[in-house]
């Protein structure tokens, strides 16, 4: 499959491999638990299908403690 850069050829080979695996019963597929993440309610988590913990798209809302703390510090500095 890695011997070609042609996406369609790669897809066809993947289908062929899946078919072979099913026919030959090469693997016994077991229950795969759903990936769970527990996050603070002020965190807007955007999970990835890879289930790896990537935080590129994740953000925090105005209610998150870090934002509130930063705002409080700015407010305190602005006080005469």
């Amino acid at each position, binding site marked *: *499959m*890695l*011997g*070609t*850069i*042609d996406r369609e050829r*790669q897809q066809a080979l993947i289908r062929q491999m899946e078919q072979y695996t099913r026919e030959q019963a090469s693997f016994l597929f077991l229950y795969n638990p759903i990936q769970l993440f527990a996050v603070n309610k002020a965190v807007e988590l*955007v*999970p*990835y*299908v*890879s289930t*790896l*913990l*990537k*935080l*590129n*798209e994740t953000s925090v809302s105005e209610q998150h403690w870090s934002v509130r703390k930063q705002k409080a510090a700015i407010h305190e500095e602005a006080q005469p």
Partner: protein
Amino acid sequence: MKQRIWWSMVTLLLVLVWLAPGIAEQPPASRGELRVVDRDPFNWLSITWNVMEHLIEHSPDGTLVPRLATGWRWLDERTLEVTLRQGVRFHNGEVFDAEIVKLNWDENTRFQQPHLAGTFMNFKPGSQLEIVDPYTVRFVSPEADGGVLTKLLFIHMANRQFYRDVGWGEKSW
């Protein structure tokens, strides 16, 4: 009266027990540096993917998207040409360009990374990076390699300071 004294003693003991953790919370004197070594490739990847940028990354739905690259095209079965994003600087002011990509290529491919999927995810021996101009590079494989785009997800882009001060494969512990 005896009962009152008894209860006073019990109360005093309870207060002392309650205060004890507070007394014990005096900051201990430093006795050196503790380094935590985690050899788990999954954790390694979770950290490097979140603290470093890459030419190409996955979107949440699994699609390959350009990040420090702006695009790519296959010139032939062995050659992938990648255009780099311009105007990018590291936090210390270092400019991101083809030279820094070459440095990261050399440092990342210097050893076999313990990829989750398997070490076949490392670039094939003999693979090379050629600088075309300051914002264009070419990845040349010794033979057709349909995994090159995915393999670029694992070339972590650090600045020169990183390689001067730390680098990969820290073994001083």
